[in-house]
């Protein structure tokens, strides 16, 4: 006995998505700071104030509807909702935890086999699924030059499973697996520098971006789309639930992260660094004090973090200087 197909009524819904927020005219009205079309819409089950939601919303505004999205296990695997809910109006596939790099290579290969060239392929993984369990597949995808955009949205822990540490958790942070306790076992290992790892692969284009700077994020995604090869975007996405800050401060936390140089905004194009300088400044202490996950830190520990942030900033600027000079030569 053959299975019956989905009801014809349901089938119709796929052919012409009636997005209530899509403009009738293709041009965005003058007032809107970003492209108007929504490809991620409400009804998802993300936490209040979730930074990863901003990241997704802005990225899809940049890529437009001709995009295929591959998402491994992470917050975003669950956020579209329980079946039959989905908050995307673009084709999207869920995959296993560690495979995003391999998955987007597969999607691009299939599109190439079918002669379809004008579709953006986006792998969308968390920090755990990228820097830890997913690093092999990411490395493979970049090394063999797949034309796809790999986005790591960074909420600095395994948030979907309840705030366990990842290699992207910053020094000083409390997580459930780096609890403070009598031994002060908060995260001591330095945050893995995934963008540098991408640079070491000789990737054509990689950049950091933040939900604090949506225009910059969108420009970077669009730049990545034009790359005839792999690109990697590291998007800073604060998590009120895991970082212990009020949900309304998500974008504020992201801004202070950049002003304090904890999360600098820069890009590396064919090995040449370009750093965005912001006029406003903040101390690392201001950044840390916004979040409950750092509240156990002593003045000395905060000073040590400030020192390492300062050092990293110096190194970054030096890289910008010498790579720019070498490119000019």
């Amino acid at each position, binding site marked *: *006995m053959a*299975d019956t197909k989905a009801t014809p009524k349901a089938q119709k819904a796929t052919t012409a998505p009636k997005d209530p927020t899509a403009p009738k005219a293709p041009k965005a009205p003058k007032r809107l700071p970003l492209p108007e079309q929504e490809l991620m*819409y*409400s*009804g998802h*089950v993300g936490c209040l104030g979730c930074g990863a939601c901003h990241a997704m919303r802005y990225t899809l505004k940049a890529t437009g509807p001709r995009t295929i999205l591959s998402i491994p296990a992470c917050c975003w695997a669950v956020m579209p909702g329980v079946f039959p809910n*989905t*908050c*995307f109006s673009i084709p999207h596939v869920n995959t296993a935890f560690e495979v995003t790099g391999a998955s987007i290579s597969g999607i691009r290969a299939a599109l190439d086999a079918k002669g379809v060239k004008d579709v953006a392929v986006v792998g969308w993984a968390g920090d755990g699924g990228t820097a830890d369990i997913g690093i092999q597949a990411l490395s493979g995808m970049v090394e063999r030059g797949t034309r796809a955009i790999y986005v790591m949205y960074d909420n600095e822990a395994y948030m979907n499973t309840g705030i366990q540490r990842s290699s992207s958790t910053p020094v000083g942070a409390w997580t459930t697996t780096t609890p403070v306790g009598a031994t002060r076992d908060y995260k001591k290992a330095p945050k893995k520098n995934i963008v540098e790892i991408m640079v070491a692969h000789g990737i054509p284009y990689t950049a950091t971006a933040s939900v604090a700077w949506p225009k910059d994020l969108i420009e970077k995604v669009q730049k990545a789309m034009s790359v005839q090869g792999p690109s990697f975007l590291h998007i800073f996405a604060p998590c009120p639930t895991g970082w212990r800050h*009020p949900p309304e401060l998500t974008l504020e936390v992201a801004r202070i992260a950049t002003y304090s140089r904890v999360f600098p905004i820069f890009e590396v194009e064919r090995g040449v660094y370009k750093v965005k300088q912001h006029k406003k400044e903040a101390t690392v202490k201001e950044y840390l004090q916004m979040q409950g996950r750092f509240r156990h830190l002593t003045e000395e520990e905060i000073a040590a973090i400030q020192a390492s942030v300062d050092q990293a900033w110096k190194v970054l600027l030096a890289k910008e200087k010498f790579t720019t000079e070498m490119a000019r030569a």
Partner: protein
Amino acid sequence: MVDRPDYRTWRDVPPMPVCWYPSALGNPTGGWRTYRPVIHMDKCIHCAQCWQGCPDAAIHWVDDSPEVDYEQCKGCGICAHECPVDTIEMVLEVKE
């Protein structure tokens, strides 16, 4: 409200888990709210920072103005915090 397939048995569902737009709109996350944003339009400067900052795409831009979708708004308060003229008030939800 939202057109969703009506699955009952193993014969009805597609061969694998697959779904499509606009199904999540049938999940009214407005029920999560403790506070609701109220935009006082008299001071609004139509900068769209509230529209831009909403993680749920629950503020629509209609006739050059923000319109909160209270079916979906979770009340996170980002819009109120981001508003440069402080014209969005977070009001405690009270059962009628």
